[in-house]
């Protein structure tokens, strides 16, 4: 059976290519039908903020790629409740249908996956 991989993305979206390159790992794995999850943690939750206008800094819209995750078979999407609250982001106004998890649930989530990488 294929090993599952959890990608923890903790970079803000317009801070260089890091956020996009973390997402690319997920999209590439999804294309191979691998069991993948993606967790947005720390500044990574800023990727999920609604109404961003990256064209103002001449960047491509990351939201379109994020929304492709379920189409690529990456349906296990999570965000850290603590990170959202600390940054004033409301769980009901995010650009992706993520499960919002508290710390105990995040510990269990990390435990469940065969492999984890935090970018």
């Amino acid at each position, binding site marked *: 059976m294929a090993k599952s991989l959890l990608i923890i993305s903790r970079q803000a979206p317009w801070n260089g290519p890091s956020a996009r390159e973390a997402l690319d790992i997920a999209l590439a794995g999804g294309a*191979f039908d691998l069991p993948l999850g993606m967790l947005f943690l720390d500044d990574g939750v800023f990727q999920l903020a609604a109404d961003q206008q990256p064209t103002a800094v001449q960047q491509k819209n990351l939201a379109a790629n994020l929304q492709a995750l379920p189409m690529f078979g990456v349906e296990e999407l999570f965000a850290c409740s603590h990170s959202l609250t600390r940054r004033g982001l409301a769980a009901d106004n995010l650009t992706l249908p993520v499960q919002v998890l508290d710390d105990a649930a995040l510990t269990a989530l990390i435990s469940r996956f065969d492999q984890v990488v935090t*970018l």
Partner: protein
Amino acid sequence: MKFAIAVFSPAHAPSSRRALRYAEAVLACGHEIARLFFYQDGVHSASANVVTPQDELDVSGQWHAFIAANQLDAVVCIAAALRRGVLDEAEANRYQRQAVNLPKPWELSGLGQLHEAAQLADRLVCFGGD
């Protein structure tokens, strides 16, 4: 046991050297390296154009020697490498760039190679940071 090792930092970063020392220890302990994968700024660790002052540790050169001596599969993510100007001859020709800085045995390929290595290996270990 089999290890997949992914490097996310350039040769001048402490974590690139740490990844190399770890990879050496993996082999010294009798284990196997399924693949080395270089991603994000890690693609700079593969650049053949790094010139290190003579009295400093040449991590880039040591990576080249380590990979050659152990005949390891060393893959550099093509998308990350193009973005950062690490090109082999084929890509330099394709994009009409003058400099080629990725010699053999390094190989440019896609992120699928990282996933394949992670599937083949018992452990995926990534290196980045200070």
